[in-house]
Each structure stands twice: as structure tokens, then as C-alpha cells.
């Protein structure tokens, strides 16, 4: 049974105004098969947590630890983290000129598995996943994210989630910018991936509406770089009614 542990994580970024501390001691343990929702107001550090787990060079870890089955993730390169079983579905996936979706998926799958996938089953898997995400076949030959709409980019992220089969996935505001139909399709994809592989999920969101389709086991409220409150799904319902004001009022401005 896999476990992802985040221990007393402090993270800062360099800005024009100098070093800015963003995460101030995050503690979180996610077991395989669990869905954790992280909710919080803008600027609370939710996305920083996501990108720090993935290893984006912009974020500087001042102290703390991220352990995947006991192994220190923070000393791994970005690609080593992915090969160890971590996945980040990005809020704004970038375009990769000159690289088709087909080529990209096969290269990533080969890198993560350490060997090329068997061609026949792989092509079938890709086709089936694309069909379930209502992605037209023509996507396969388009360059990664080039000219994709916001919804298409998010579906392409979930396509990768399904095919690369990570142990833990962080979904960074995957719901933002999606209409209700696209939100349902994307949520189905996430639920399908969990059903098939039993992965653990860290669902980062500003709104509660994605939690109607992906049911969290735990909800954490993120305020000012740390977890201010945690509970079960009922906490999300309460946030839906009350918003974040209650937490913000307790936080000093700045």
C-alpha cells in the first residue's frame, strides 16, 4: 500500500519584491485509494503545493519533507518524480510545438514504464481512453495542447492520468474553466482512473462543484500557506454555504 507524506513543508518563491514565503508548515498524509480535496481562497498556496510536489524549479523548499513510500521526493528531478509514480494535472498545460499527442504519450509511457508499451494493446488503450473522454480521433495527430481549447487541454491531462497510471495524482484546479458537460466528462475520467488503478488523489479546487462528481474522503481547508481545518465531505458542504470568510477573518492581513 503506497503512501504520500508531506511533513512540515515550508516553501518560498523569488519575486521582484524579494523572497516570499508561501507554504508555512504543511502536513498531509495521503494513502493509496484516498481522495483528498484541498480547498482554499486565491493566494492561499494551493497551487504552490501542487507544483512543489511535482518539482517545478520556481519553488524553493526551505524545510520539510515529501516522502513517497518512505523515499524522499524533494531530492528527485522532475522526471524522476514522475517515474516514481507522481502525476500533476496542470491548470494551464503548455503547448509543445512539433510533438504530436501520439508521440508524446508513447514517449512518456515508455519513460515511466522503463520499456516501450506493446504496440497493439497500447493503441487500443489510447483509443478507448480518448473515446471515453469524448476526444476526437484527430487529437492524436495534433501537437500537444497546440490550439486546444481550455476544456480540450483538461481532457488531455486526464487522458495522460488514465494512461500513465500514477500512484498519486495532484489535480490543480482541473475544474476551472470547464462547463458542466466537460466537468462531468473529466470527472468520470478521474473516477475511472481511480477505479482501475486505485491511485490516491489530491484534488485542488477553489470551488465545491467538482466535489459533486468526485467524492472526497477528506477535505482540507488551506489558508495562508497551511491547513487551517480538516474534516470529511461535510466540510465541503459547509464551505459551499459559508465561503472562506470565516477563515480569512481569523488570518492577519498580509
Amino acid at each position, binding site marked *: 500500500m503506497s503512501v504520500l507524506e508531506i511533513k512540515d513543508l515550508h516553501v518560498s518563491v523569488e519575486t521582484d519584491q524579494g523572497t516570499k514565503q508561501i507554504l508555512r508548515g504543511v502536513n498531509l498524509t495521503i494513502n493509496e485509494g484516498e481522495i483528498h480535496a484541498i480547498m482554499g481562497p486565491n493566494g492561499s498556496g494551493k497551487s504552490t503545493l501542487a507544483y512543489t510536489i*511535482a*518539482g*517545478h*524549479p520556481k519553488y524553493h523548499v526551505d524545510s520539510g519533507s515529501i516522502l513517497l513510500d518512505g523515499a524522499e521526493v524533494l531530492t528527485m*528531478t*522532475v*522526471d524522476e*518524480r*514522475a*517515474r516514481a509514480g507522481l*502525476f*500533476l494535472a*496542470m491548470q494551464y*498545460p*503548455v*503547448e*509543445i*510545438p*512539433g*510533438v*504530436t499527442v501520439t*508521440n*508524446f504519450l508513447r*514517449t*512518456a509511457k515508455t*519513460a*515511466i514504464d522503463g520499456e516501450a508499451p506493446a504496440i497493439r494493446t497500447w493503441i487500443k488503450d489510447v483509443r478507448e481512453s480518448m473515446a471515453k473522454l469524448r476526444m476526437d480521433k484527430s487529437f492524436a495527430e495534433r*501537437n500537444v495542447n*497546440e490550439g486546444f481549447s481550455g476544456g480540450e487541454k483538461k481532457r488531455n491531462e486526464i487522458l*495522460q492520468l488514465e494512461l*500513465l497510471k500514477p500512484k498519486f495524482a495532484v489535480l490543480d484546479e482541473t475544474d476551472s474553466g470547464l462547463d458542466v458537460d466537460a466537468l462531468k466528462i473529466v470527472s468520470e475520467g478521474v473516477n475511472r482512473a481511480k477505479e482501475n488503478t486505485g491511485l490516491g488523489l489530491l484534488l485542488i479546487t477553489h470551488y465545491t462543484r467538482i466535489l459533486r462528481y468526485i467524492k472526497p474522503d477528506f477535505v482540507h481547508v488551506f489558508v495562508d500557506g497551511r491547513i487551517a481545518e480538516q474534516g470529511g465531505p461535510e466540510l465541503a458542504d459547509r464551505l459551499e454555504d459559508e465561503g472562506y470568510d470565516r477563515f480569512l477573518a481569523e488570518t492577519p492581513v498580509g
Partner: protein
Amino acid sequence: MSAASTSTAPTSSPTSSEALPTAEQHGIKEHSDGRFGFVPVQTRSARFKSFDVADFPAVTGREAVWKLSPVAKFTDLTGGVLDGSAYDIDTASHADVDVSWVDRTDSRIGTAGAPEERAAANAWSAFEKALAITVSGEEAKEITLTRANLGSAPRAAHTIIEARPFSQAVVILQNTGDARISENVEIIVGESANLTVVTVQEWNADAVQLANHFATIGRDARLKHVVVSLGGGIVRVNPSVHLAGQGSDTELFGLYFADAGQHLEQQVYVNHDAPNSRSRVTYKGALQGAGARTVWIGDVLIGRTAPGTDSYEQNRNLVLTEGTRADSIPNLEIETGDILGAGHASATGRFDDEQLFYLQSRGIGEIEARRLVVRGFLSEIVQHIGSKPLEERLQGAIEDELRGTEGN
């Protein structure tokens, strides 16, 4: 592609000759190619031409054809005495492809085009014998001519490639070793012939090559022209194609990969001069390393004589590191309204850290990530060459280019 622009870095402040109308007088809007309101007084086909070097004034670097080239680095080729003797050619013989050295009096010489600048005229004035490659026979065939021993003294060369009517061939010009050369290549495509000319530049690092290719295409004939520039210090290959016959067709491809300190340039000109002619121009380049420099100028002229023209030109550059410069200047002149289509496009985009992060976050290592992007970007051109062995070899050569800079 993130950015779409026609030029990445303007060069000089406005310099307009008194003899020329200003942009205001002319009423046109200036393009972003750095000419800053310079209005050409002539159409592309009206440029001065001469076979005699003495007809051209000394090169200053301000001329339209030279303004983006490091002219100070090859004054011997634009103004000096050139060795015009024959040189070693390595090729396998083929029954339907005659390769021989011919005299300056050969009737084909001067039929495909004439020099528009001094280096080309200097070479034309200096060559003693022309290398003539004459293709006949309707079945498909491929021939490779390799030049590997041109040496480092300045020299001139003249080549004729003629595809007789209804003939078909792929002619590959392979260039390696040292060179300081100015040369002209005349390509004559007879009625209904189907010719592919591929010129591959894999020179040594300090080689200088200034090449002009002049092609004339007959009725219902087809020319595919591919320029692949990977090695050499300064490599300038300028193809100029005259679509002279009704229904003539040309596809011009280019692939270039500039490393630190390399200058790779191509000025492409397509002259639609007959009804129902078609052209496609696609040049793609990658730049990597400090001082890597590429220039692409694409001129397309659709004349009054060319109703029913179908034309499209595009240039794409992929910038892999800081400190490079890609100039990309598409020009389109249309003199008739009766055309099927005419378009041009240019984009210069970066491979940046966010793209690297994205690919790495999917398990792909940094080196593989760069390779994936460049290979994908350039393979569109490689796939069009039409010679499987050469395509495979060039894929390998591109990998070597990437590997070469990994060590930097």
C-alpha cells in the same frame, strides 16, 4: 508556437534613399521586417541581373540581398579572384543520368536564370567548366553526387541539372569537408518531367558557401527542391524558381539547424509566370547556442501572366536557447486578382522551461525532451525528401546536432 512575427530583431535605423518615394508618398504600410518604411521601387522580377561581375558595385552590406549576411567575412568571394577549375566529384554511374564537365559554351548555360548579386556574378565570371547532370528516362531513380575535397581556397563552381521532358529522378548534392565557394546551380525541368533536387550542407565548421540555385520549370513539370543546412560556418543557399510553363509545380523545402556561431541563410524566390502554376514553400529551422543565426527571406511573385496560381509559403523557427537570432521575412507580391490562393506565414517560437517542465513531469528526461521537440519539429521536412536512406541518415544527423550541443 508562442510568438508569431516576421522578424525577431530589427537592425538599423531608417535609411531611405532620396531617389525613392517615402512610405507616406507611396501610401503603403511598412512591414515589420526592419526595413522601416523602405519602399521598393521595383517588383521582384525587375531586379538588376548580369552575368558579369564588373557590372555590380562593391558589396557594402546595405544591399537588400546582403543586409542580413556577414559580408565582411567573405569579401574574397564577392570581390576576389576565384579558382574556377573542375573539382573531384564522387558519384555512382547510372545509365539514364549523364554526369560530365561541359564548356562555358554549352547551350543550357544561362537559360535558368542570371545573377542578381556580386558573389553569384563573380562565380559566373570565373568558372572554367560546368558540371552537367543530365537526366533522361521515365522510371524513378536516385543519384548522389558528393563533393568532399573543395579545399579552403576561394573558388567558383557552376552546375547544370537538366531533367529532359517526361524524365524522373531524385538528385542529391552532398557537401562535406572544407569549402570557400561561390556557385551557381541551374536547374532546367523539361515538360512533364518530375525532378527532385536535394542539397545537403554538412561542411566543416569554418566553411563558407554562397550558392544560388536558378530553376526554370516547363509545362506540367514538377520540381521538388530541398535545402538541408547543418554544417558550415556561413552557408547561404538561395533558390530561385521560375514557374515558366502552364501547370508547372514546385515544392520548396528547407531544414536548417544553427549551432553557436553558425550563420545559415536562405533567400527563396518563386516567380509565378504561367497559368495554373502551383508553389509550396516550407522552411523550418532550429537555433541553439550563443550567436546561432538564421535568415529566411521568402519572396513570392504572382505575375499578370499567372492566373489560377495556387501559392503558399511559410517559415517556422524553433529557438532552443538564449543568444540566438532568427530573421524571417515573407514577402508576397500579387499582380493578378485571378488566383486560387496565396498565403504566407511565419512564426518563431521558443522551447522554454515550462515546456521542459511539462515533458519532464510526464517522466521524460531533459535530453529526451529536447530531442523529442526538435525531432518532431524538423521531421515534417525530412519526411518530404523522398529518399528513404537519406531521410534516415538526416534523422541521425539531427540527433548528432542535438548531442553536439549537449556537451556545451
